[in-house]
């Protein structure tokens, strides 16, 4: 029987994507819920940090289409692709990330890791701090807190653009990018047989997550007590 779809996105990439949707939204919401709920903001932040770090590592050792070397094109390609989007007659299909999408992935990963990273050292001037506040001077923490707020604005814009673009592809250009990020599969007409992946290397992914989780847990355990009190 002829297969109608081919596997392009492995399970770790898909799970990472949707867990990021949950943890990033969660981080945003819990930042405004009040001091009692603030520990959830930290937990969401840890999750984002581990997921993004994992994705970066996976971009080096993961399956074919997860690797940066396979979807990052020169900026010239990205701009050419941007012009292609204006026309309905040209095919926009690509196997993995298209040139424009590839660079937005990099931008989102960079901003997310910067956001989670600065949050580790931040303070709200009043009562709450990041877990590594005790490792930096108060002045440095204040600077990193400022970046944490600025990067949020950039993230809001970038993630908003991301969602809008997926909607644009789907409703205007009739290219469904949402389903493949859930099932992993794209129509066979768009994916040549050699391009298909044949497994998700789940055990490797779990191993990387375990190492990253262990490193974060150790750092949290050994960090000095973080408090705004001078006594």
């Amino acid at each position: 029987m002829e297969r109608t779809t081919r596997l392009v996105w492995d399970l770790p990439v898909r799970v990472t994507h949707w867990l990021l949707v949950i943890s990033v939204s969660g981080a945003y919401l819990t930042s405004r819920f009040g001091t009692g709920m603030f520990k959830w903001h930290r937990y969401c932040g840890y999750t984002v940090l581990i997921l993004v770090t994992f994705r970066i590592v996976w971009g080096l050792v993961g399956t074919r289409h997860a690797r940066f070397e396979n979807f990052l094109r020169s900026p010239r390609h990205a701009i050419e692709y941007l012009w292609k989007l204006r026309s309905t007659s040209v095919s926009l299909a690509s196997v993995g990330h298209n040139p424009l999408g590839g660079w937005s992935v990099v931008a989102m990963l960079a901003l997310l890791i910067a956001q989670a990273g600065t949050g580790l050292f931040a303070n709200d001037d009043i009562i709450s701090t990041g877990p590594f506040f005790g490792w930096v001077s108060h002045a440095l923490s204040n600077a990193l807190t400022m970046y944490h707020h600025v990067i949020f604005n950039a993230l809001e814009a970038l993630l908003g653009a991301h969602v809008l673009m997926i909607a644009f592809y789907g409703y205007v250009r009739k290219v469904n990018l949402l389903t493949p990020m859930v099932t992993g599969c794209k129509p066979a007409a768009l994916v040549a047989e050699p391009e298909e992946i044949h497994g998700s290397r789940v055990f490797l992914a779990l191993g990387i997550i375990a190492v990253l989780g262990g490193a974060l847990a150790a750092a949290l355990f050994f960090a000095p007590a973080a408090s705004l009190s001078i006594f």
Partner: protein
Amino acid sequence: MKFQRQRKMVAMVSFALTTLALLSVVAVQSASRPSKGELAVEYRQSLYTVMSVNFGPLGAMAEGVMPFNAAEAQKRADRMAFLAPMFKEAFPADSNGVARTAARSEIWAAAAEFDKDQQALIEKTALLAVAAKTNDFAKVKYAIQETGETCKSCHYKFKETR
């Protein structure tokens, strides 16, 4: 008289120099004395520092970083309640936009709203002082968090982020 003209010259020049010297001393003195607006800024920043340092142990207890100590909590809470009403007089109109201030001009543009926040701080710190006397950590923790929220919500609207 001998050297009549020269003596006159010396007298005029000494008089001019003395006047100049006195005038410059006066000018320097008034330039270095802070204006009322500058003093108000210094006053409230000092108050906020005292309040912040006293809130520190309370915040640490609420976050679980410092063990709960009823006597310490009461002492700190009483100080918070004592300090909170002092801010009402610390925002005169001539302190708006003065050097070093982190007070946004919205404080004077939306004075009614700012006054509500001031009042909220007075109320929450009063409640904190009352809660601290119960020696019940759950109640104290809740009151500390409420106070912290009041500080933060006012900052969010009225304090310049640096």
